């Protein structure tokens, strides 16, 4: 069954991946609530959607990692769209691992932005959807969450925790038939990776977005994007430590 004509909140709608997801969903007649922290950029994304579709597009401005404000933002999203049928948590930050390793306060910001605050959004969505007996939860994790590495273990730990958290929420909502999807992209060519030289392993945000929507269509629980990462991560996860610890990755 294809995901269409629903009311969707995208938390972090200015992300490159999220922009492409929004295009596909708006094209399928979904009413969109776009949340982000920069009004100008939300406007740019909204103008594009409005030119392409006749569907309603609402904007929600705020710091998405600031948990104190979540209740209020979430109520505003519900009010704007007259209810919600899906929540997609897409924002995130890569952070600076070196800084974080040296100064935990920095590291904690990475954990909070990618895990704690994301978990708060997922909680709000879970409570609403459980009450109404329907809904769809999607959050973008990362292959980095599959195994801790010296080069990004703050980010990786946050994404791994998010994966586990979604697992629990999925367990809780299973009786109601509410899908909870954890998206695990590999390298994607977006502003987040602008400083990393591009290799053929990089996918385009549009490709990832198509994969996300396809996984929503089939109500998947976990999806690696592109699919080849499933195998790569299987190997990486199962490497014994005496081998893994010699790798410079």
């Amino acid at each position: 069954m294809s995901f269409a004509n629903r009311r969707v909140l995208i938390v972090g709608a200015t992300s490159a991946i999220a922009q492409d997801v929004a295009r596909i969903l708006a094209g399928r007649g979904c009413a969109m609530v776009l949340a982000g922290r920069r009004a100008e950029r939300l406007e740019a994304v909204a103008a594009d959607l409005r030119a392409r579709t006749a569907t309603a597009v609402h904007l929600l401005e705020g710091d998405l990692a600031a948990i104190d404000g979540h209740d209020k933002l979430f109520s505003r999203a519900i009010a704007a769209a007259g209810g919600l049928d899906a929540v997609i948590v897409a924002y995130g930050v890569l952070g600076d691992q070196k800084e974080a390793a040296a100064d935990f306060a920095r590291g904690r910001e990475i954990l909070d932005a990618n895990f704690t605050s994301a978990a708060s959004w997922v909680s709000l969505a879970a409570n609403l959807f459980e009450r109404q007996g329907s809904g769809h939860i999607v959050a973008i994790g990362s292959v980095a969450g599959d195994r801790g590495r010296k080069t990004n273990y703050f980010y990786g730990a946050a994404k791994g925790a998010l994966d586990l958290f979604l697992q629990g929420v999925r367990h809780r909502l299973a009786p109601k038939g509410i899908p909870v999807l954890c998206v695990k992209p590999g390298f994607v060519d977006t502003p987040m990776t602008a400083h990393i030289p591009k290799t053929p392993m990089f996918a385009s945000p549009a490709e990832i977005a198509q994969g996300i929507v396809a996984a929503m269509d089939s109500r998947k629980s976990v999806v690696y994007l592109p699919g080849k990462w499933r195998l790569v991560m299987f190997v990486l996860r199962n490497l014994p430590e005496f081998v893994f610890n010699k790798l410079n990755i």
Partner: protein
Amino acid sequence: MHGLADRRGHAGIRVTVESWGRYPKTAQRVISREWRDEPLAIPAGLSVLAHGMGRSYGDSCLNDGNAVISTRRLRRILEFDPAEGVLRCEAGMTLDEILDFCVPRGWFPPVTPGTRFVTVGGAAANDVHGKNHHVAGCFGNFVRAMELLRGDGSRHVLHPGQDLFRATIAGLGLTGLIDWVEFQLKPIGNRWIDVETIRMGGLDEFFALSRESEPSWEYLVAWVDTVVSPGRGLFIRGNHDTAREPSARTAGKKPALRVPFDFPSFALGRFSIGAFNELFYRKQLRRVSRQTVDYEPFFYPLDSLLEWNRLYGKAGLLQWQCLVPWAGGPEAVAALLKETHRSGQASFLTVLKTMGSKPAAGMLSFAGPGITLALDFQRGGETLKLLDRLDSIIAEVGGRLYPAKDARMSGASFREFYPKWREFEWFRDPAFSSSFWRRVTEA
């Protein structure tokens, strides 16, 4: 939230960038521009240049040792007027993306080059022309407004009639970075094109067919043989179909073939091209064939083979496209074909077209009244010598070369072909430069 990886201020990654001709090979920083509200990122001590899809063949989209700002992420629509067919979009939006958007709505780009993989910014900065030049003019003739971002941080919304507008259309990216373009689309009934393909035996027939077709056919182009019997070829003319029902675009992306590796250089040798031309010509058994075809194979026959430039091998390919005025033009075209034939160098795709007289919107626009001939060669020493000889043939009749397809014309030739380059220098942004510009103005 400071400290959290907002790395957008970074100065780009240094990489090798190629243009479509895969020559020259240059190393430069690549900075991606993501949003219109961002300031221009200019690395200290380096010049910058906007880079779209890199579909220019030579070095006009390259900035060796400096930086290019990729516009590929600027691909949002700002506004679309469905009643008037006016589209305002970010400069990195490609014709491919625009076609997907506008064809189902009954609109078509007013001018399109032979590939759909160009950005709107690139189309403006080269003032590109298409098969309808004889009636429509160039892309710049349809630009109603655009926003230019200059190295000093200033922003300018430009309109036709302004000097900076004239300098920026066909301005080779040197007047600043175009953030968005507003242009007029043309209404169409459906996605089909009525086509006639006519076998022609030589240049006389080409000119007669062009004269006959210009008033009633919107799209004209000829493919000519330079290997077996120069001047012989196929004359192709098309009009948007009006008989069929408006039909939506078929869903889903067309399958695309990608050339998986660099072909060995002999693959495109003289003999295989001769054989190909022979086949192509013979395929057309009747003198005139009529068909109604989808717009895609009509306008973009090469696009179904992604990265076909790799067929030319590692050395890369050299395009050579000239415009010669009517006075002396037909004789010059004959001389060019003869010289090419005599040299034994095979041009794979040789395209000939008569151009219209609508004045171009840019100071350095390539297109103008006359005849245009495009040749392409695998790059090699003999080819370069041949092209120098061809340059002098067109110089004699007051012709010029197309910078979008050039990697080798001399500075002296460029300055002779484009005498307005001095006036243009006045509008050039000092923070911007390109490999091409340094080559043709400093040598």
